[in-house]
């Protein structure tokens, strides 16, 4: 019997609505089909009508969580176009914000995936710990979300001793919490049952499908723009790429948790090596015209490689800005991850690549043969999955061993 399950039409609330159709036989998924393009906001087109500087604040809104990555990536590309000399201190501050963003993004994701598998206790803890980072970015930039810290040619706000010492505290705190989460994730039976061996993406597939970010690294692929193509100050920063060979959802959790520890290390290194004083921005104003030029800018956002192509025709507005976000690179891999797994595994697998969680707004189960249709919303799917696992965990455990 072949059953078709479409997942996720749009919902005005969502960040990145995606529609999946899952083909299932009994409980087992045989195929999947992602369908994107539900929220075309026209941001790329809008950039052509705004000035170079106004675009900083537009592109920041592409994503609420990795706003600094987007803005920084654009600023980096625009600096190549303006042929600006970015002061070193600005690069340090920018990198500090990127790493803080990675910390709070991974903590947010960890909470979300725990919520997807029904482990709400950990969801509360991670989101509580995330507040420490949010308070710090608010202190540095003046806002919790949309920091607007980058500008073309540097950063907009200087950092003082008080902020640096708080950054040190936060880095230490998050590192200790990440170690705790790693212990929890590797030892809790509930988490292992739902994630160990689920959503396997082999290393070959991960390379073949051009996955990026933690999704690729959890399949053992050493792919990290910070390392492969160092930008800003990453060529001086000592850090290790975190990879794991598990290739499953558990590995994706472990990779992200270990990355938090690495990010905390980078933050500590930045705090100790930050130039004491000096300028924080090159002299480019809102009314400076760039030369005719084009640039490619790549940044390792929390979800993976972020890519910007920017073209200038010498006027106050860019001619073209093209964005490739990490979720777009990773979404195809979901097809390969779900094959052979159960309906109940859909939430953690789709959540595993860190797209917008609430994409799975509605689930319609359509029996192709007799046209029977039942509708699930996302909450019901999560509840269904928890119930299904409660009933079946014993033999599943045996099977996965």
């Amino acid at each position, binding site marked *: 019997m072949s059953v078709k399950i479409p997942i996720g039409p749009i919902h005005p609330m969502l960040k990145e609505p995606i529609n999946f159709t899952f083909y299932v036989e009994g409980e087992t998924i045989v195929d999947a089909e992602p369908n994107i393009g539900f929220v075309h906001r026209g941001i790329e087109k809008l950039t052509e009508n*705004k*000035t170079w*500087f*106004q*675009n*900083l*604040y*537009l592109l920041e*809104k592409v994503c609420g969580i990795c706003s600094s990555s987007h803005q920084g990536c654009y600023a980096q590309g625009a600096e190549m176009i303006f042929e600006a000399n970015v002061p070193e201190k600005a690069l340090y501050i920018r990198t500090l914000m990127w790493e803080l963003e990675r910390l709070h993004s991974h903590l947010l994701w960890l909470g979300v995936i725990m919520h997807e598998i029904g482990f709400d*206790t*950990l969801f509360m*803890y991670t989101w*509580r710990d995330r*507040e420490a980072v949010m*308070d710090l970015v*608010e*202190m540095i930039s*003046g*806002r919790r979300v*949309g920091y*607007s810290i980058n500008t073309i040619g540097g950063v*907009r*706000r200087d950092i003082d001793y008080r902020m640096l010492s708080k950054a040190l505290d936060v880095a230490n705190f998050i590192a200790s919490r990440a170690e*705790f989460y790693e*212990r*929890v994730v*590797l*030892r*809790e*039976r*509930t988490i*292992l049952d739902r994630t*160990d*061996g689920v959503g396997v993406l082999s290393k070959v597939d991960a390379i073949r499908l051009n996955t990026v970010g933690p999704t690729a690294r959890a399949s053992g692929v050493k792919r990290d723009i910070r390392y492969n193509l160092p930008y800003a100050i990453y060529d001086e920063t000592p850090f290790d790429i975190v990879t794991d060979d*598990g290739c*499953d959802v*558990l590995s994706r959790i472990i990779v992200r948790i270990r990355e938090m520890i690495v990010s905390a290390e980078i933050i500590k290194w930045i705090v100790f090596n930050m130039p004491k004083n000096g300028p924080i921005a090159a002299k480019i104003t*809102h009314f400076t015209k760039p030369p005719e030029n084009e640039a490619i800018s790549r940044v390792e956002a929390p979800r993976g490689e972020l890519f910007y192509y920017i073209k200038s025709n010498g006027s106050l507005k860019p001619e073209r800005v093209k964005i490739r976000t990490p979720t777009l690179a990773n979404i195809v891999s979901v097809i390969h991850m779900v094959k052979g797994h159960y309906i109940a595994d859909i939430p953690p697998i789709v959540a595993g690549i860190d797209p917008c969680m609430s994409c799975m707004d509605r689930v319609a189960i359509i029996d192709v043969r007799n046209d029977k249709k039942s509708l699930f919303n996302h909450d019901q799917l999560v509840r269904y999955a928890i119930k299904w696992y409660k009933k079946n965990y014993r033999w599943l455990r045996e099977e996965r*061993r």
Partner: protein
Amino acid sequence: MVEGGEEIDMPWGIVLKEALRNLFKKPVTINYPVVNVEAPEGFRGLLSFNISKCLGCGNCARVCPTNTITMVPSDKTRLKRAPRFELAKCVFCGSCVEVCPTKAISFTRNYHTAVLKKDELVINP
């Protein structure tokens, strides 16, 4: 994948300890409308505008990414025009604050932006 070990079979082990410890702690959430939280220094809240400093140059209206600012005629400035802010459109980017030659625009630490009528968020010169 994880190797099976003794601790793995310990259900609720490590989280239970943490949960029990948290049971005796104060809640971390803040009872917001009752308890007011002070925003930190340098917070980018609602804008405030001091017309006595304004020249009427119009730089702020030129840089604003969201067309929050429009220049309207006014007798109070040297160039006979002054900015009008529709703060409901403002994204708190701070471009206008940065670009103003006389520091007539500044951020306040007020983050209470919920109002019943949009007009309450308009600053007329």
